[in-house]
């Protein structure tokens, strides 16, 4: 009897601790009306760095998207062109698009750039890491917002 109680207490503590840990590594956010209204960080997005992250291997947006005014010959066409994206979406909507596109389309091939849970067989180099940091995401969306027709 005593042993059983002990086991229950220990497992409870274990789950409590792992739950806290799970929420620890990423900044939490609220999704409201298919958007994330509040910035993930308290620093303003840096447009120049955002462009760099998006066009480099880090964000790798060019694998799937065309980007206007960028003369890399090799741009993918899996997703829609990002031309005029700043007219079509608000910052809050763009933030959700990058953080967790599965809310909009569960089958999306666009990766969630800010997600670590619920992924299978992740390469050891990348476990427990999101593809982009919170600040990089803020930077990229502030750059996206400048892409206006």
């Amino acid at each position: 009897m005593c042993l059983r109680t002990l086991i229950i207490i220990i497992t409870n503590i274990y789950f409590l601790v792992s739950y806290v840990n799970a929420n620890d590594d990423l900044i939490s956010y609220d999704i409201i009306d298919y958007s994330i209204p509040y910035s993930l960080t308290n620093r303003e997005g840096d447009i120049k760095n955002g462009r760099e992250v998006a066009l480099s291997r880090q964000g790798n947006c060019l694998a799937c998207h065309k980007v206007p005014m960028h003369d890399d010959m090799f741009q993918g066409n899996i997703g829609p062109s990002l031309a005029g994206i700043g007219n079509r979406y608000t910052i809050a909507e763009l933030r959700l698009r990058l953080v967790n596109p599965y809310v909009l389309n569960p089958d999306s091939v666009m990766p969630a750039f800010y997600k670590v849970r619920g992924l299978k067989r992740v390469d050891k180099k990348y476990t427990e890491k999101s593809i982009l940091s919170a600040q990089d995401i803020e930077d990229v969306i502030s750059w996206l917002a400048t892409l206006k027709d």
Partner: protein
Amino acid sequence: MSYLIKFFFALILFSSLDLVAEEKSNYKNSEKPYKKSELKSGSYFSREETRAIELDEFENPGMIWVERGSELFNTHIGNNNIACSNCHNKNNNSLIGVATTYPKIYKNKLINLEQKINICLDNNMNAEPYLLESNNLLSLSSFITYISRGLPMSVSIEAEAQKYFNRGKEIYFERVGQMNLACNQCHDNLAGNYLRAEKISQGHINGFPSYLMRWENIASVHRRFQFCNNQARAEPLKIGHDDYNALQLYIAWRGNGLLLESPSVRR
């Protein structure tokens, strides 16, 4: 009471029959992503320059492995001092057409052509098996595949192969890695589109072993799987892994009917 037991038995029996029926229907032809007329080999999607190199036997770098394989095939190897060609030749145990049937069940286990070659080295020649993905092994498999060039892929998914087939299909549709991508998302849904500079193909394996210009080397099917896993930032499996063989069987079946084109050339 005994009626109740019989009733339960009947129930279990019927439900298991149902399961069998479902398993069978798992691989109806209609479930293939591509109808036979829509099947397109990878070379259909590759660039014209690359395809030209593939088709020119003098320029195709994969032919170096084929030639080396042909030499090895006729060389005495191992303690029995015997060559493959002593047992496998025009009149006896010919290997023409054999490559179209792999992966295949051998002693209750699914194995690929490279593993079968190693079994022959071990059992029939008293020789040390080659390391998977080694030059010698890929040379032999390139040669053996080459002599089936132009013949249609025809793997079997019946009997003992069925459970591997089901597993392979599962893997094909499973989203993995930091990018959370499954094979079907690119090779069924996006074939013909560009991922960066690369036109995505239907992901068939009728050109393997395949020469990859980026590595200046020949690659087995499993090596290519590792590469696609890497790109999704998923932990790749070991070459020769049961799950890769299962996946290879599923993909080979998807492309049954395509003509063997090895050694293919890709970027």
